[in-house]
């Protein structure tokens, strides 16, 4: 591997990520499955980095799942996205921070469409106005939330209480990064580092002390794919795609996977359990599974937040070994305690629980 080659590509794919004042649009599934990730993203930005992030309660789903599931037409989704832009315009924001990779892909697609076919923009303005009476300005930038963490990765590193380093050996942790397909495969210039060698997560891992694993199926889809997952009969494809990735990364003995897409995190985590049930195979060293973390969770860990506050216990693959390696003291017994100290029911079928 020639690092200078990658650096050259990264240099070619640099995008403008604003410094402050974000209009935040959330993800349907991240806030549901990894509520801590979203919460800590906002918290880190606001409290640790002192940024202004605006949330509007009137913001809705982007309908991306419906769009990719062939039930929402392109005109409709343009109008929905335009409405988000209208909310941002009304609040005086020009930079959109998008939590979901699917949404990010849709925003990119719509902006590109408007750029190449200005008549569609006009049509959308008309549609939105007729439907809601709103008008909007096209935002100056769109950033995926991982872009924003990427931008501030060194600042986070400076404030770090922990690093992606095995404290017992002093060696960097071996980290697999997984980028959601819609982050940059459709429009490489919208992603940090492009599509073939994305830098967005690599940059974070490098800044926080970890080692990147470049394994053969790195580019491969996690298997989510809306039509694959939504139709039960098709889930075998989804599962197959994830397994292909696990088998490819397995020889490297990774300590964790970091993903920037809510769907990918979800499926790479849950399918490990399903594969264990169907084939009896558990991946990871000592068959403890490979923890799949969001970059927000990792940033939170680095900054010293409580793993159970971050919501690590709500992953199917538990991260106890990983936390130990990083030197983070967290009592497993406290994983499922409610705020008042009472015990919550423990999820069944945890890997490495």
């Amino acid at each position, binding site marked *: *591997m*020639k690092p200078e080659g990658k650096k050259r*590509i990264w240099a070619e794919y640099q995008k403008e990520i604003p410094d402050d004042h974000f209009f935040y649009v959330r993800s349907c599934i991240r806030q549901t499955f990894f509520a801590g990730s979203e919460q800590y993203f906002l918290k880190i930005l606001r409290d640790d980095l002192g940024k202004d992030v605006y949330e509007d309660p009137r913001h809705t789903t982007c309908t991306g799942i419906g769009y990719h599931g062939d039930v929402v037409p392109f005109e409709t989704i343009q109008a929905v996205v335009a409405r988000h832009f209208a909310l941002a315009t009304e609040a005086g924001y020009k930079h959109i921070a998008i939590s979901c990779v699917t949404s990010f892909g849709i925003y990119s697609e719509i902006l590109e469409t408007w750029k190449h076919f200005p008549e569609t923009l006009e049509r959308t303005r008309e549609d939105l106005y007729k439907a809601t009476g709103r008008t909007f300005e096209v935002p100056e930038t769109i950033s995926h939330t991982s872009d924003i963490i990427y931008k501030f990765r060194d600042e986070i590193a400076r404030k770090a209480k922990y690093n992606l380093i095995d404290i017992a050996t002093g060696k960097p942790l071996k980290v697999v990064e997984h980028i959601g397909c819609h982050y940059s495969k459709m429009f490489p210039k919208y992603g940090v580092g492009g599509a073939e060698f994305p830098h967005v997560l690599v940059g974070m891992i490098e800044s926080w002390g970890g080692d990147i694993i470049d394994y053969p199926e790195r580019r491969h889809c996690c298997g989510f794919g809306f039509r694959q997952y939504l139709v039960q009969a098709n889930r075998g494809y989804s599962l197959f795609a994830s397994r292909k990735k696990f088998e490819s990364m397995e020889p490297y003995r990774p300590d964790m996977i970091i993903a920037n897409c809510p769907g990918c995190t979800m499926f790479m985590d849950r399918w490990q359990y399903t594969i264990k049930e169907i084939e009896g195979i558990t991946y990871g060293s000592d068959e403890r599974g490979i923890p799949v973390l969001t970059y927000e969770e990792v940033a939170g860990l680095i900054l010293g937040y409580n793993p159970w506050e971050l919501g690590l216990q709500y992953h199917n693959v538990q991260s106890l070994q990983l936390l130990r390696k990083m030197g983070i003291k967290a009592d497993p017994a406290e994983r499922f305690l409610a705020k008042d100290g009472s015990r919550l029911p423990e999820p069944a079928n945890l890997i490495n629980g």
Partner: protein
Amino acid sequence: MKGTPQHVIIAGGGVAGIEAAGTLADLGYRVTLVEKGDEPGGHILQWHALFPDRRPAGEVKSYLRKRIEHRNINIITRTTVEKIRHHGGGVAVNLSGGTEEKADAVIVATGFELFDARRKEEYGYGIYDNVITSAELEEMFNRNRIVKADGTVPSRIGLIHCVGSRDEKVNNNHCSKVCCVTAVKQAIEIRKMLPSCEVFCFYMDMRMYGPYYEELYREAQEFHNVNFIRGKVSEASVNINNRLVIKVEDTLAGRPLRMELDIMVLMVGMEMAGSGMKLAEASGMKRGINRFLETTDHHYGNNLSSIKGVFYAGTCTAPMNITDTISHARAAVAETVRYLNGK
């Protein structure tokens, strides 16, 4: 011809430029050959052996060298022609370095550039250790040593056709014509040097268009056991053993295929040379959608520019092999002479 011989400037000292210069000089014209490199010769200088008969490139190189040992030819190296413009009844050219040269006609022979393989990011050229170009493989032949980056001997080599050719994604829809036969030639050479090394050619179509090219292809299959897989490689990565892993559809089986390689050779295609593009820009010479120079008619005017007194020779107009380049250069001379006689 009477009086002082007429003067022709040739922009570019590759195969076409040299052949045009030699022919013009033989006919008694005064020629100035402007070459941007240290010496005339062009791409062939790096080549080890030529298709289809795998003759040593040196034979053609020495032919070309002799071709310009002529008192009528003045060679200017490390110089490019920046601009061509009309001057009186003839033409004048601006050379890099600020000088100007006048002539009765100009032959543009600025040639081609090899596709920059880094533009096919998914192949990881410049990133993975053992991804090389066909030109680099040729240099290995010159050194008589085919080895991986770590110095070990490869046991499997893949040659990827159409890198930078027939690919909208890199803005090249044209076929570079010579890469298929080059791949077959190189495959045979690898097999001869390393008999225990498996060789695979990944092709979209086998375009064996020239005489004895198809025979070479057959020879590769019959006697050298070169494997051919029809399909365009989509991407390359490395595995834990630092072996390349490629993905391709085996279109004849209708199924995806994955294979490990020790060395991946990218058969880089031909593109219009950057210097030629600049010259065209500055001088108002038209270019086609493939970015090569556009001739007035691609059947019977394929040496003619739309500018009076300016003629084209060789691969600045389209990808071609050495044989065709030499013929094209001679034809350019014929057109030039016809023009000069009519003046």
